[in-house]
């Protein structure tokens, strides 16, 4: 849903009761640590709501009126501004309620996100451990709701994904367990599907691995290969698969070959010529941890596809992949090249 305010909506802002809109919408985000994630969406003028109605619910599916949300946002902005300039300070609960609605309207509202961080940090100095664990898990639940809903801007919001990573660092510092595999399946995969080529979602996956919150494993690799096969035009998913192979190859030398075989089989049977999968294959074929036999097979398949394809756009993708692989396969690994330069 676009942030833009259509003329009709802008004209309607002064009608109705903005405070009632705020009360109804903020109730959605009452602290919750378990239960199913909400499937949020925002509906505009194509789905008019009855007067005084700001939400539609069907189980976990919740539709929020765009008009109601904008009215609620204006109420929240006043609350936050008055708190920050000291004219009317608010308690933590009120700030969390207001900033939740602000982030639903505008996921890039950094002040709202940072206000939430400050509220949670203040609690760390005065709350007991069990209460702190509850409040931080509630924050995770809130973020997961926004990152996995059908909200086009939220699923790929750098502010929200950075906030999640900040939160997980806090989890680690407080000894609260993090289920990295669950984050991959229930948050990254879903956000990656809601918003294709989702750099921030897959960067979060890399964050989980680099921080040790998720251990690369055969099971994880299988899940990622399956996701990539089902989203074969998604270059971000393929990039993460390559990253994962790079992190698992030392513990399982046959993994690279098996993955290569699996992807090549898919490409051949479905005659895939999209750039995303071919960038993955050429990078893998050119990498030093791929065997010569697999690289030769890649080059052979690329050439045969060029011969049988009728489309010039496919030829461009395939030739580019072929040339890239031939160029970079022949080069020494980067570390060796640097050493050679220093010691000619």
């Amino acid at each position: 849903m676009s942030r833009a305010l259509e003329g009709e909506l802008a004209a309607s802002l002064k009608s109705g009761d903005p405070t009632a809109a705020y009360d109804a919408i903020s109730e959605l985000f009452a602290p919750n640590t378990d239960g199913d994630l909400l499937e949020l969406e925002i509906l505009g003028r194509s789905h008019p709501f009855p007067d005084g109605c700001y939400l539609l619910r069907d189980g976990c599916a919740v539709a929020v009126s765009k008009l109601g949300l904008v009215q609620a946002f204006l109420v929240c902005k006043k609350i936050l501004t008055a708190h920050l300039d000291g004219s009317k300070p608010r308690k933590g609960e009120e700030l969390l309620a207001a900033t939740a609605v602000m982030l639903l309207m505008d996921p890039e509202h950094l002040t709202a996100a940072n206000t939430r961080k400050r509220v949670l940090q203040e609690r760390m100095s005065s709350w007991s451990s069990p209460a702190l664990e509850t409040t931080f898990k509630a924050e995770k639940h809130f973020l997961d709701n926004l990152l996995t809903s059908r909200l086009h801007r939220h699923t790929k919001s750098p502010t929200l994904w950075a906030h999640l990573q900040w939160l997980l660092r806090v989890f680690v510092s407080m000894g609260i367990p993090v289920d990295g595999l669950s984050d991959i399946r229930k948050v990254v995969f879903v956000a990656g599907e809601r918003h294709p080529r989702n750099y921030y979602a897959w960067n979060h996956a890399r964050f989980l691995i680099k921080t040790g919150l998720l251990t690369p494993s055969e099971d994880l690799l299988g899940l990622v290969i399956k996701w990539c096969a089902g989203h074969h035009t998604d270059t971000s998913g393929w990039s993460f698969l390559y990253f994962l192979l790079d992190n698992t190859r030392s513990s399982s030398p046959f993994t690279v070959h098996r993955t290569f075989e699996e992807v090549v089989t898919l490409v051949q049977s479905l005659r895939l010529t999209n750039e995303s999968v071919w960038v993955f294959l050429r990078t893998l074929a050119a990498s030093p941890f791929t065997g010569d036999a697999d690289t030769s097979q890649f080059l052979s398949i690329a050439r045969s596809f060029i011969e049988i394809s009728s489309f010039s756009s496919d030829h461009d993708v395939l030739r580019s992949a072929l040339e890239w692989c031939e160029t970079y396969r022949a080069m020494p690994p980067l570390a060796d090249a640097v050493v050679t330069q220093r010691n000619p």
Partner: protein
Amino acid sequence: MKVYYIGVLDNSKQPAVVLAGEHELSDFSRFTRNEYANFMTMIGKTVAERTRPGQRQSVQEQDYVVHCYARSEGVAGVIITKDYPNIAAHSVLSKLMDEFLAEKPLASIQGKTKDNEVPFPKLKEYIVKYQDSNEASSIAKIQQELDETKIVLHKAIDSVLQRGEKLDDLVAKSGDLSAQSKAFYKTAKKQNSCCVVM
């Protein structure tokens, strides 16, 4: 790879009649699913009506593709997909149409004038089974004789329409779409399309 709709239509009539159809719209939000379902039925009919007997077409429209295989018997299979290779979509259609015509005598279907009057439970199995990339891969391998060059490709639905016809006009006139669906179509068109570098 998603399959949103599979249907078998009588495209010897104008407008085409849906003999049997199934939607899989869990990708779409709860409160807009009906609008997408109606729109897909409408767009399936539009393409089927403009696919000649024996012809295969794949028509791109925004994020999805409408694939149609019209048999000489005056019956057409339609599948609406996202990120689904054409060869796999048409392989599914070949199998579907063979099964449908083997099971349903022409005399039993030619007189239908209202949508969804021919029970064909296998459609539900098809739409579930062929969501899986492995199943799509298997059927594409089996149907290797399918000549991809024979599939007529269109980059937009306007290119299958007659001169002067626009999709917006067809939507406005359509009896398959409610007023809400028509209003939703206008707003849904304006959604941002990003991250399409590759």
